[in-house]
C-alpha cells in the first residue's frame, strides 16, 4: 500500500471527480492560480483549466450562492470556502437556500453540492481563524456533514458526497493536511455516512472525529499499556448521526467520553451526550464526560492555544474519571 498525505488524498479525490464527471467543477478563493490556501488543489488548474478550477473573488455569499444555483442548473459543484471561519459570511445561502430549497419547493428542487472547508485550531492563527463550528452545521436539517479524519476517508468520502443528491459539508481539519498514512484500495462496503470503530475495547467508549481522532487514538494507546480497553469510535458523519453504532458501543462499554474541539457549551459532544442520556441511561455506569475547548476565543500563543483545546492528557484524565480511577 502506498503512503500519501491527507492533502494529496483530497487532491486525488477531486481530480478523480473532475475526470469522472463533466458536471463537476471546483470553485473558491485561490483554488486555481494560488493552488489553494492549504495547497490542496495545487496542479489541478493546469490539468482542468480555469472553467473547471475556478478562482473566485472575495465574495463568500456570492460564490456559495452561485454554487447552489449551478447545482440547481445540473452541475455538481465542489465549492471550497477556504475555512469555516469565512463561511459565516455564506451561512444565509447554505442554511436558507441549500438546506431548505428541496423542502420549500415540495421536493421539486434539489441542491447536489459539496462544500469543503478547512476548520479547527492548532496553527496559532488566533481568534478569527480557529473556529470549530461543526455543531452549527450538524444542527441544520437538509444538509449532511462529513469530517474525514484519515487519509482513507480524505480520499474516498468526496465521491459519496458528490453522488449525494443533497448538500454535503466536508470539514477538513487544518492539522490533518500533512498527515501521511497508508492508502488502502476503496472497500466495497465503504460508506461515508456511518461511524466506524477505529479501535475495539471493552471498558470505555471514546468518541472523536476529524482532527481529534488521533488524539483519541493515542490516549487509547497509552491506556492500553495500563490494561484499559478503550473503544475508539470515529464519528465521521456529523449529520445524520449514526446513533446505532454509537449506542451499540456505549451499551457494551457502559462508559463514554466524547472529544470535540468546539467550545463545550452547545457542542456536538453535547448532542451525543443528550442522546445517550435519553436512550442509554440505564446502560451507563458513569457520568458522560465531554472533552472540548474551553469557553474562550482561541488565543495566539502556543501554550494558551493548547490549553484552550482538547489534549491527550485531558482525554486520559476524563477516561480515568469515568472508570472511577480518580487519582
Amino acid at each position, binding site marked *: 500500500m502506498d503512503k500519501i498525505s491527507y492533502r494529496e488524498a483530497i487532491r486525488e479525490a477531486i481530480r478523480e471527480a473532475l475526470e469522472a464527471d463533466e458536471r463537476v*467543477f471546483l470553485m473558491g478563493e485561490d483554488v486555481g492560480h494560488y493552488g489553494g490556501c492549504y495547497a490542496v488543489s495545487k496542479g489541478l488548474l493546469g490539468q482542468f483549466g480555469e*472553467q473547471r478550477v475556478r478562482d*473566485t*473573488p472575495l*465574495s463568500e*455569499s*456570492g*460564490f*456559495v*450562492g*452561485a*454554487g*447552489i*444555483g*449551478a*447545482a*440547481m*442548473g*445540473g*452541475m455538481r*459543484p465542489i465549492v471550497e470556502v477556504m475555512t469555516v471561519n469565512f463561511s459565516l459570511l455564506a451561512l*444565509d*445561502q447554505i442554511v*436558507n*437556500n441549500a438546506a431548505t*430549497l*428541496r*423542502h*420549500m*419547493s*415540495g*421536493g*421539486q*428542487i*434539489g441542491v447536489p453540492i459539496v462544500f469543503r472547508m478547512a476548520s479547527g485550531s492548532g496553527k496559532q492563527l488566533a481568534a478569527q481563524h480557529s473556529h470549530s463550528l461543526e455543531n452549527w452545521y450538524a444542527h441544520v*436539517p*437538509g444538509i*449532511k456533514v462529513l469530517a474525514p479524519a484519515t487519509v482513507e476517508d480524505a480520499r474516498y468520502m468526496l465521491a459519496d458526497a458528490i453522488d449525494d*443528491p*443533497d448538500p454535503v459539508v466536508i470539514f477538513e481539519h487544518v492539522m490533518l493536511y500533512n498527515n501521511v498514512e497508508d492508502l488502502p484500495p476503496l472497500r466495497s462496503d465503504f460508506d461515508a455516512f456511518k461511524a466506524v470503530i477505529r479501535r475495539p475495547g471493552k471498558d470505555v467508549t471514546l468518541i472523536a472525529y476529524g482532527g481529534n481522532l488521533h488524539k483519541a487514538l493515542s490516549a487509547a494507546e497509552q491506556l492500553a499499556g495500563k490494561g484499559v480497553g478503550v473503544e475508539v469510535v470515529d464519528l465521521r458523519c456529523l449529520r*445524520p448521526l449514526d446513533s446505532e453504532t454509537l449506542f451499540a458501543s456505549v451499551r457494551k462499554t457502559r462508559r463514554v467520553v466524547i472529544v470535540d474541539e468546539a467550545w463545550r457549551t452547545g457542542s456536538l459532544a453535547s448532542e451525543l451526550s443528550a442522546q445517550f442520556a435519553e436512550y442509554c441511561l440505564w446502560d451507563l455506569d458513569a457520568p458522560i464526560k465531554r472533552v472540548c475547548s474551553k469557553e474562550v476565543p482561541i488565543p495566539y500563543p502556543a501554550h494558551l492555544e493548547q490549553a484552550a483545546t482538547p489534549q491527550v492528557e485531558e482525554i486520559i484524565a476524563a477516561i480515568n474519571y469515568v472508570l472511577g480511577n480518580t487519582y
Partner: protein
Amino acid sequence: MKIHLSKADLHQRLRSMLRIRRFEERCAELYTQEKIRGFLHLYIGEEAIAVGVIEVLTEDDAIFATYREHGHALARGLDIRAVMAEMYGKQSGSSLGRGGSMHIFDRSKRFYGGNAIVAGALPMAVGMALADQLQGRNRVTSCFFGEGAVAEGEFHESMNLAVLWELPVLFVCENNGYAMGTSLDRSESEMSVATKAASYGMASRSVDGMNVIEVEAAAGEMCQAIRQGQGPQLLECQTYRLRGHSMFDTQLYRSQEEVQQWLDKGPIVLFRAWLQQSGYITDDELAQIEREIEEELQQAVEFAEQAPFERIEDLCHHVYAAELR
C-alpha cells in the same frame, strides 16, 4: 424603440395583467377570511413588469423572483389552481403547500421561486447562468428583486460575478420606491441605477415600469443582447406598490395623497385606457376578458378549497432526496 404587437397580443397583455390583479384581489379577501395565512405580499400596481419581461422569455429560460412573486408565477404560466392551492397550503399546491405565498416553485416551468430572503436569489441566478454557460446552453436566467435589495452585499457580489464571468443573466430591479417603510432616499446614497451598473461595467436601462409595452420592448432587446453573448444586463423598472408591503402594513411612512396619485398611473388603468382610446378593444371584449378571468379564478378557488392537506405523517418528507432512517 418600437415593437410590433397584433391586437391579439395587446389583448393578451391586458388579460395577463388583469388576471394577476384579480387573483391578488381575491387573495386579499381570502386573507381576511383567514384562508390564506402567514405573509402575503401583493404585486398590485407592478404587474406590467412581470408581464412585460416574462413575455420575452422562452420556456428554456429561468426565473428567480422574491416573496412578491404571484404575478411572476402566473405570467410564467404556472397552473393558477396550483398557485391558489399553494396559498391555501394544500397538497395540490405548486410546492405541496409547504411554501405558501412566499415560496411558489415550478421546476417544469423553470420557475425557481419564491425566495423570501432579500437579495438571496441573486447569487443563485448567477449560478444558474453559470451552469448554462458551462453546459453550452444559450439560455437567459432572469432575476427579479426590489430596489431595497440593492443595498445588500449579495447584490454587489452578484453583479460583480455576473460581469466578471460574462454570464447570461437579466437582472430586473422592480423599483417601487420603498423597502417596507424605507423610501429609496433613506436606503441608497446614490439612486441612479445606471451609475450603479456602471461600477460593475454592466449594461443597464431604466424604464417606466407602469408601461407594459415599454418594459417588454426593453426586456426584449436586453435578452437579445444576452443571447448574443453580450453578458448580463440590469433593467430598472420604475413602479409603485399600490397596496401595503404585506397585509400587516399600516403605511405610516407614506401619505394617502401619494398613493392616490399613483392609483391613476397604475399599469392596468393606463394600458386599458390607451387600448380603448385607440380603439384596440371594445367594452364587450373587456367585459368578456373580465368574465373569463373571474370564471378561471372561481375554479381556482374551488380547486384550492377542495384540495387535501398533506398528511401529518409525511411531515419529515422532502428534507432529503432519500428520507433518512
